[in-house]
Each structure stands twice: as C-alpha cells, then as structure tokens.
C-alpha cells in the first residue's frame, strides 16, 4: 500500500478530496452522510474527558467504588454508563505519592475513547510516541510535570486491546468538596498521566 498517488498533503486539496470521496460513496449508496454526521457529533459532543472525570471523582469519594474500579475497570466504568469501542477492557492505574503512571501507544495511538474521547494531537505525535517510553521524566518535565527523583515512573504502552486510565491522586485541601466539585478539577492530562490534578485549576481541554 502506498500513498504515492496522492502527491499533496495541502489541507485545501485534502478537503476537496474528502468531499469528493464522500459524494461518491453516497451516490453509490455505500453510506449515508447523516450516519457520518451522527458519528462525528457523538465524538465531538457526547464523549470526552468529562466521562473519565466522573469515574475519578466517584473513586475519590466512594471507597467501595474505588475498590471495584481497581479490581475490574470495565465493570466499574460501566456502572456509570460508559463503555464501547476502544473501552471494552479497561484497566485503571492508581497514582500514589511514590508511583506515577503514564499511558502511551507507541505502535499506533490506542486510547480509551469512552472515558477520554478521541486523543489530542500530541498523544498521536511521533514525538510523544517515541520519547515517553525512553525518557518519561524529560517528556513530563517539558509538559509541565516535574516528578521528584524518588517517585517511580511507570509507562504503560497500550500494545494490546487493553485500555488504560490513570486514577490521579486526589489533591490535598479537597476534603470538603462534593463529588461534583471534584469532577470539575479532574483534567484529561491527569487521566493520561502527563499531569496532576491541582486545586484552583479547573479542567479545561488539557
């Protein structure tokens, strides 16, 4: 297989090409553009890191749930209604004061869609895929997370269909917050393991 027949990777050419391709497939009756719309809308609007944040906040506030989550991630995540493609066998990794977990897929860009949505560009980049396994501390530092020397760092390379979600540490000073308030603190980056949850920095995209 080769991409040689498509000489251009100019965005305008790509836009035209994809439009023509969809029109052809529609005219052939191979697909219905409304179905494409529905898939796109689902991944743009319904699925995202808010799902994972609910899982994390529940685990922080409900010890029995946390136990179930660490024992059988798939089932515990399904309790909150999340599951499906790229999340059919979920394993949750617990960060502690002495162990920091971080997730990658060096061979492609596997990612737990049902709880985190589609992966950000940097997660799919050759730089992240090539470097995080070899020099995790250096990469995390570049991304703003300096790990103390005494903390052990474990990189999980998603080479099978198992999908990993990091359970970040609950930050100090959040004892009085409700599950809902906690949920809003949890960032996607913390659930990949390239960040930590901090008080006062509400979750945005990162």
């Amino acid at each position, binding site marked *: 297989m080769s991409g040689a027949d498509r000489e251009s990777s100019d965005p305008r050419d790509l836009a035209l090409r994809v439009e023509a391709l969809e029109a052809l*497939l529609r*005219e052939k009756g191979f697909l219905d553009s409304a179905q494409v719309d529905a898939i796109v809308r689902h991944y743009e609007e319904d699925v995202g890191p808010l799902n994972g944040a609910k899982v994390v906040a529940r685990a922080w506030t409900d010890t029995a749930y946390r136990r179930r989550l660490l024992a059988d991630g798939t089932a515990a995540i399904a309790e909150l209604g999340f599951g499906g493609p790229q999340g*059919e066998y979920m394993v949750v990794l617990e960060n502690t004061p002495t162990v920091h977990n971080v997730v990658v897929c060096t061979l492609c860009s596997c990612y737990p869609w049902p709880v985190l949505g589609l992966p950000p560009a940097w997660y*799919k980049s050759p730089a992240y895929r090539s470097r995080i396994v070899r020099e995790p501390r250096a990469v995390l530092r570049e991304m703003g997370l300096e790990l103390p020397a005494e903390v052990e760092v*474990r990189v999980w390379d*998603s080479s*099978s269909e198992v999908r990993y979600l990091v359970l970040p540490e609950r930050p100090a000073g959040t004892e009085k917050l409700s599950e809902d308030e906690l949920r809003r603190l949890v960032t996607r980056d913390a659930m990949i393991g390239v960040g930590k949850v901090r008080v006062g920095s509400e979750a945005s995209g990162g």
Partner: protein
Amino acid sequence: MNGIHDMGGMHGFGRVEVEKGEPVFHARWEARVFGMSLLAGLRLGANIDERRHGLERLDPVTYLRDGYYGRWLVRLEQSLLERGVLRPGELAGRLAGHKAAATPLPKLPAPARPAEHPFLRTVDRSPVFRVGDRVQTRNHQPAGHTRLAGYTRTRRGVVARVYPACVFPDTNAHGQGEEPQPVYAVRFEGRELWGESAEPRSSVYFDCFESYLEPDAHA
C-alpha cells in the same frame, strides 16, 4: 513488521508540541474521514488488526507526513479500492471535474455476525505464566503485523498482570485465524530497554501476547 510505525524509543522527532485549544477535529475533512472510516469498517467487515496493518503498510514518508487522519484517509481509499467499492481512477476522475456517474457497488458480503466480544475469547487452558514470573520476549520480527514493538524484542521482564485470552493480532490481521491466547502486562526496567541512557526509577509495562514470551533462560 519493523515499520516506521514502530517508533517507541526513536530519537529525532523533537519536542512534544501541545497545541492551544485542542479541537477534536482540526478541519471538517478529518471528521468526515473519521466517520466514514468507522462506517466502512462495519460495512466491509475488516477487523481491527487488518486495519492497523493497513496503516503500517503506508510508505514511511506518507506515514510521517500525513498525520493521523491523513493516514486514515489513505487507508480508507485503499480498502475501498481493494473491495471494489471504488474503481481505480474513479476518485481522481471526480477531482479532475469529470461528470461520470458513480459506478455501482459490487456485491458486498453480508456483515459477519459480530462475536460475543470483540476480542476476548474463552480458551480451555490456563495461562502459561503467572504474576511474578521472569520472562523474555522472543526475537519475533515477522514481515507481517505484530504487536511486539522493536524496543521490547529480546528483552527480559517480569509478569505484572495476567489478562484473559484475546484474539492474536499477528494471525488475525492476515486471515489466519484468531489463535486466542492470554495477554500479560510485562514490566521491563528502563535499564533493560535503554541501557545506560535509561532514566532512573523508570520502567515500561508492555502488553505481551503469550506467543511473544518464553521463560527467562538466565533468571
């Protein structure tokens, strides 16, 4: 295959660039390619291992230059061509402004009845290895699809987790059956993978299909 996709541990790709805003899709075409690819996968019945292998077989410049959804687009076109949904030259003709009607669809096989689980399978034997076992990965480097990355080949580690039997990508990608087998999360010390260049107190947990492993001969 030892392809360009197998980039774990490579140097030379620069810094990890985090963009502002991080939209799910950066352009409408990315979103359409994503949606069409999912639909085509269902309709054509290609399994995930075949589809991953389709990306790996892109020529290396295309792989690196086109980005994630650019690669998906090349693969989508290729699989549509292979199944006869697109005729050779048909898309190029449209782009050149030809007004020819779309050619009719070939007879596509009815979608296979989905298995009970996409990849978990029941096997009537126990896993060969247990948590704590010292193992080493084989020198397994087929020309076809594999999920044993180059950087973990012939390395020694310890079984950290035992997962249920899963469909084996190396055969499933090539229509050679599912060969379900246990999967193990194996812990490899940074030093074992990267030698003296390893960072202290670092390790990689890599999911290994049972066929990739043998007992550590020198443990």
